[in-house]
């Protein structure tokens, strides 16, 4: 399928590993991405915090830039996805907001008609449009032996309190990782918050949330946490050392994007998938995959026959025999 593509600011640089690996896997799966011409920042959670109407207008400009003929707009960053999704829905539901936003767009000779664009997350197009069965056909190096945490965060599962996923216990990423051959870790915090912008607002709050996620993953002997959002990756990876310092712990938990491990499973090179850009090295993952597979488990020995001399076992009483 052909999609309009909104990379978002993070994927340009800090989450380049996500952007590069997403493009690579869509290539393997023959999906076409058409980047929006001259897109602008989504405003993260910051613009909505202070001034909602300009925030909606900022986002509607991106919706207005979707080329005619394309209906689906893909955003891999969950914060961009939340904002675009929320804006599209609110414009459709609120006529006054829609006319105000379009009055603002008209200043740059743009307009947007609600309902014409479907905002999708990168994970959704891969599992819903391409599908697990098709993805499985492209696997060259199954992720056998890896114990991965499927971590969803907030915005993918609860975009503005809307959305179609289970807001508490989603499973699409679990199923994708299992399709790739990995073992998934049952993770009670899979849809919990990574701290968002809290490292800047109140670092202690953020460290507490980061610590909970990392420590829980470590206690379940995970090899890595798999994310689908640049903010989650940034908080769990880049701030992991600070959270360790704050709590006196020594965790070293790699945090990767789902598209990076998907690329590995498709036989693409770790370098092309952006391995090495993470703060907590994910070399252990690559080593584990490169290691020869463990010898197959020995056939369980046959159960020894009961000795004929042993005392008789109690027999089951047939119906009717009970008095």
């Amino acid at each position, binding site marked *: 399928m052909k999609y309009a593509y909104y990379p978002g600011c993070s994927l340009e640089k800090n989450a380049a590993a996500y952007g590069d690996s997403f493009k690579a896997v869509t290539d393997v799966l023959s999906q076409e991405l058409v980047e929006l011409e001259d897109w602008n920042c989504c405003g993260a959670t910051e613009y909505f915090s202070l001034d*909602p109407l300009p925030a909606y207008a900022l986002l509607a400009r991106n919706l207005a830039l979707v080329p005619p003929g394309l209906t689906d707009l893909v955003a891999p960053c969950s914060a961009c996805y939340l904002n675009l999704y929320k804006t599209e829905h609110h414009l459709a539901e609120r006529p006054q907001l829609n006319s105000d*936003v379009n009055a603002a767009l008209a200043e740059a000779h743009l307009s947007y008609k609600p309902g014409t664009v479907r905002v999708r997350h990168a994970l959704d197009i891969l599992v819903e449009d391409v599908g697990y069965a098709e993805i499985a056909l492209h696997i060259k190096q199954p992720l056998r032996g890896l114990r991965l945490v499927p971590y969803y965060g907030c915005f993918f599962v609860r975009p503005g309190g809307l959305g179609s996923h289970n807001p508490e216990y989603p499973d699409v990423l679990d199923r994708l990782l299992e399709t790739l051959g990995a073992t998934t870790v049952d993770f009670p915090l899979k849809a919990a918050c990574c701290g968002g912008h809290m490292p800047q607002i109140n670092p202690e709050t953020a460290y507490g949330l980061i610590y909970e996620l990392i420590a829980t993953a470590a206690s379940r002997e995970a090899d890595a946490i798999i994310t689908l959002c640049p903010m989650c990756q940034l908080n769990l990876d880049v701030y992991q050392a600070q959270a360790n310092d704050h709590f006196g712990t020594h965790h070293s938990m790699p945090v990767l994007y789902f598209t990076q491990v998907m690329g590995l499973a498709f036989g693409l090179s770790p370098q092309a998938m952006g391995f090495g850009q993470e703060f907590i090295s994910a070399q252990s993952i690559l080593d584990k995959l490169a290691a020869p597979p463990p010898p197959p488990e020995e056939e369980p020995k046959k159960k020894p026959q009961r000795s004929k001399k042993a005392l008789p076992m109690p027999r089951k009483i047939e119906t009717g025999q009970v008095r």
Partner: protein
Amino acid sequence: MANEQHEVTLYDQVAAIPGGERLKSCLQCGTCGGSCPSGPDMDHTPRDIFAMILAGKREEVLKSNTFWYCVSCYYCTVRCPQQIPITAIMYQLKHIAAGNKAYSAEATAFSQTFINMVENFGRGFELGLATQFYLLNRPLAAVGMMPMALGMLTRGRMALLPTRIKDLNGLRAILRKAKQIARQRDLEAGVRA
């Protein structure tokens, strides 16, 4: 609407957003605060805030740190048994507090710096954001941020220069107009005097 007979209350201003009037149906069950990642650091949990709004404690509400600590995770919104749009109310409280300058400048510093980057370039610019925010607001913490910034640079994860969109003038015109309409709507809803 603002008129002489009826002074606009904080409740009226919150109820101005779609679903905001559901605030009145709050059961005081506390699911919101119990679900909140920042709950323990808030000086009032969302449940308290709702009771305070309904009790007319305007100043105490607007001076609390509650909504500034909201990370917008939407757990409370999906869990509220009364379908109160709690996260949206937190956004509205930020907007009201900001419009009435009822906060310490630090509360909005990060958001404002971020918005400035967007308005200057049309794109986010992390190095500019971090430098401006930390030097102006937390000069001491800035020193501690250096190793992280270096790590980001050496891994190619941070740009040294901002990227500007082509139609920056068009974007600014859109935002200017949107702000002008927003002021008008805020006056109508009594969010701003």
